[in-house]
């Protein structure tokens, strides 16, 4: 399941709903991304997440489908917020549920790695020197490249 929304989400309720009634699931791996108050050397007051409505949902649905193709998963969840977020606030929740622990871990890591390089979101940070668009990270490209099949 994928969702793109301005509002916060309830992690416990979301993960509970993901597995409810599916007693073949052995494990659920999840990742919660949070707004940090510092990025490199810069102190961050808050950030605004912009996205491309329509394309975002399509890309996330493709990432979800690709995870299902690669691993034996019982459920996949991607929730991503947009709008203005303060330090400590949740940005994203990704989760993968499987009979097998390693599949859940690998799929969850794949979800966040691909989301970071594929889903059309952009961060505008509020810094003491004014607003600043966050640059894409080479480390994120490297993380995503792990999942490219030869």
């Amino acid at each position, binding site marked *: 399941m994928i969702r793109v929304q301005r509002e916060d989400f309830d992690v416990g309720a979301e993960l509970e709903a993901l597995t409810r009634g599916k007693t073949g699931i052995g494990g659920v791996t999840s990742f919660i991304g949070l707004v940090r108050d510092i990025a490199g050397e810069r102190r961050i007051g808050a950030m605004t997440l912009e996205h491309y409505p329509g394309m975002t949902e399509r890309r996330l649905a493709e990432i979800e489908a690709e995870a299902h193709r690669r691993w034996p998963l019982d459920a996949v969840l991607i929730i991503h917020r947009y709008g203005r977020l303060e330090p400590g606030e949740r940005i994203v929740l990704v989760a993968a549920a499987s009979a097998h622990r390693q599949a859940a871990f690998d799929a969850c890591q794949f979800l966040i790695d691909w989301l970071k390089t594929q*889903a059309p979101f*952009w961060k*505008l940070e509020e810094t003491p020197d004014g607003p600043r*668009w*966050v640059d894409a990270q080479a480390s994120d490209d490297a993380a995503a490249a792990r999942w490219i099949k030869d």
Partner: protein
Amino acid sequence: MKLLYFAWLRAKIGIAEERVDPPPEVTTVAALLEWLKRRGPGFAEALKDTRIVRVAVNQEYVASDHPLRPGDEVALFPPVTGG
């Protein structure tokens, strides 16, 4: 053709969305970018290094040789930074 601009491309160009009718020789993404650059200083500045401009046509990522059609939705944006 519908054009969308996001993040610092939108900020530099100064508009988020517009409808354009490029000349008939603009048949690919690369040709569209070259044509847009000549529309004003904001466009020239935003598109001066096209290697860091990502392009989606009808909400799918495409390469610079991708063909364009009049009804396409073309989005230009910097590398994404979500998650």
